[in-house]
């Protein structure tokens, strides 16, 4: 099967009409090229969007209060209310599937700068948080430390600032840790700086937030035991989407909100959002395969067509060979191998050009800087192997009909053909 003579013959036949062979090969190569490019584009989009989720605990929901719309237990509708710290404890007890419940507060941003350091000022978001928030936000401590439960318990006036703030308010090589910032009139010591895990440049607000212990925040800015909103992450294995109803019902009870009041508590389910994006990726790669394979099929039909023409042209030769005693199976095998060889070679060329194209796109992306929602388009080795498998199968299919028609002609008729 892999004899030198057979390969010699395959090459002789395919190179005897080079232009036609190349034109045929182009169809298959183009199909594979399109398939590879589509899959890579899908992957690039996926990588880009995934990066936005990078480091975020995706099994998370956010929950905040609105105004009530249904009167309940003597309380009127249109009532404003706040979560309390006791709600957090209540949730911990009632919903054991939750891993992290982070009560959060934010300083209402007034006009003008709220942060002062010497002569430098700036306007930044300021949050009161528990230490666990760092597991839910896609940030990491670059210098110093994050605050801990001791800071919470002792209500220390310490803050962790974004690296962007450090760049705004400090000199290039100045040490920020240990210095003091005045935030809305209160002095806080900087104990750490953080950076974001994603490096897509971000907007103006990236790495420009300030975190301080929740208790410190409550005391400094008079929030008592009010909670602005909560970031709630479920344990692995539990879905936050399934728990959200129970969570909301629990806080409705403790806040004396009518159980059917749909608008009193707002929430955002990150996991559901994430799943929606995940299924989008699935759909994208399905479309890529679908379109790519359709294009490929037209190439394969081209190969099949050309093989039929080649057989027609070689009818007499096949007759001669059979008169000389060549086994029909050998002829069939020969034609199948020619077809597979042609598809694989042209497919390989398509893959190579696809890879070069992707390489070029990557180089371009690197040189112009990150593009929103698009990152590192690539195809995995698995995809290439699948493509090769598709090629072998399609080569077989393309050669099958011609091979059969070749041996169906009786040698006597084949010899008569002029």
């Amino acid at each position, binding site marked *: 099967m892999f004899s*030198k*003579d057979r390969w010699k013959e395959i090459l*002789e*036949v395919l190179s*005897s009409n080079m232009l036609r062979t190349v034109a045929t090969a182009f169809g298959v190569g183009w199909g594979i090229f399109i398939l590879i490019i589509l899959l890579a584009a899908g992957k690039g989009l996926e990588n880009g969007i995934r990066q936005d989720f990078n480091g975020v605990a995706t099994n998370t929901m956010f929950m905040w209060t609105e105004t009530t719309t249904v009167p309940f237990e003597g309380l009127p509708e249109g009532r404003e209310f706040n979560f309390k710290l006791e709600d957090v404890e209540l949730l911990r007890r009632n919903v054991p599937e939750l891993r992290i419940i982070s009560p959060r507060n934010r300083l209402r941003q007034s006009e003008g700068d709220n942060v002062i350091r010497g002569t430098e000022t700036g306007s930044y978001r300021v949050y009161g948080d528990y230490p666990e928030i760092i597991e839910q936000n896609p940030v990491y401590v670059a210098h110093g430390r994050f605050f801990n439960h001791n800071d919470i318990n002792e209500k220390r006036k310490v803050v962790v600032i974004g690296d962007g703030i450090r760049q705004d308010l400090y000199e290039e090589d100045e040490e920020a840790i240990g210095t003091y910032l005045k935030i809305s009139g209160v002095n806080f010591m900087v104990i750490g700086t953080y950076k974001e895990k994603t490096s897509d440049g971000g907007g103006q607000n990236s790495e420009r937030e300030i975190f301080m212990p929740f208790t410190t925040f409550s005391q400094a800015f008079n929030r008592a035991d009010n909670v602005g909103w909560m970031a709630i992450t479920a344990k692995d294995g539990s879905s936050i989407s399934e728990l959200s109803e129970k969570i909301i019902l629990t806080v409705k009870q403790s806040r004396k909100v009518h159980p059917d009041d749909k608008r009193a508590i707002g929430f955002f389910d990150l996991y559901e959002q994430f799943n929606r994006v995940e299924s989008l990726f699935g759909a994208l790669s399905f479309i890529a395969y679908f379109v790519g394979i359709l294009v490929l099929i037209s190439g394969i039909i081209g190969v099949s067509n050309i093989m039929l023409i080649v057989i027609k042209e070689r009818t*007499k*030769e096949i*007759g*001669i*060979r*059979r*008169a*000389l*005693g*060549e*086994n*029909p*199976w*050998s002829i069939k095998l020969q034609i199948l191998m020619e077809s597979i060889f042609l598809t694989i070679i042209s497919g390989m060329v398509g893959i190579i050009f696809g890879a070069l194209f992707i390489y070029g796109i990557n180089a371009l992306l690197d040189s112009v800087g990150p593009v929103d929602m698009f990152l590192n388009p690539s195809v995995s080795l698995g995809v290439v192997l699948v493509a090769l498998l598709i090629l072998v199968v399609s080569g077989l299919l393309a050669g099958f009909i011609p091979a059969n028609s070749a*041996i169906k002609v*009786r*040698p*006597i008729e084949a*010899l008569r053909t*002029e």
Partner: protein
Amino acid sequence: MIEIKNLHKSYKMGSNSLHVLKGINFSVEEGELVAIMGSSGSGKSTLLNILGMLDELDDGSYDLDGVPIKDLNETKAANYRNKFLGFVFQSFNLINYKSAMENVALPLYYQRVARKERQEKALKYLEQVGLREWAEHLPSELSGGQKQRVAIARAMAAEPKVLLADEPTGALDSKTSYEVMDLIQKINDQGNTILIVTHEPDIADMCKRIVHLKDGVIIEDKKIEQVRAAQYVQ
């Protein structure tokens, strides 16, 4: 060598059936050189095709070297053709993208002879037909006579029991025809059995026996005094 009894063959042409061979009885001994003659439509080519296992017989029996030839599937037929028969065609039927030597080596390839031995044998047979130095040439670079000699070398390469030639000189001028016949006679002198289909009386006269076919039956079968082709060849 060849034993044919009561051979019938007809072709279906739409609703009509054309009875081409109507009971042929015919046998050939080893070492014979037989000319099968007849006008167009007499059934001579059909007979040769059946002898060559390129076509199937409808009725009767055909034994080749003691082997009954019947119920052949294509694989078996190919095998028998390769082992028993060598073909020479009017239009040479060389494979045009293969060199003379490769063409001659082709039947040996189908016998799974090793590459090196194949080439040696091919060169030996090319030597016999006087084309040793044309071994690397493609058929398109050869003259008609040379092509036919390559074809004869190819037919002989597998050392067949019987050589079947269908109008071997039909596409050649008379001088070249005699050269080819000279070659065929020499091969016959070595003891090979050869059947030639021809409609040219001078070619038939160079055989040892002439079988006349008319309308699907043998009307004459006679041994003759062979005319040597060598006297016409310088």
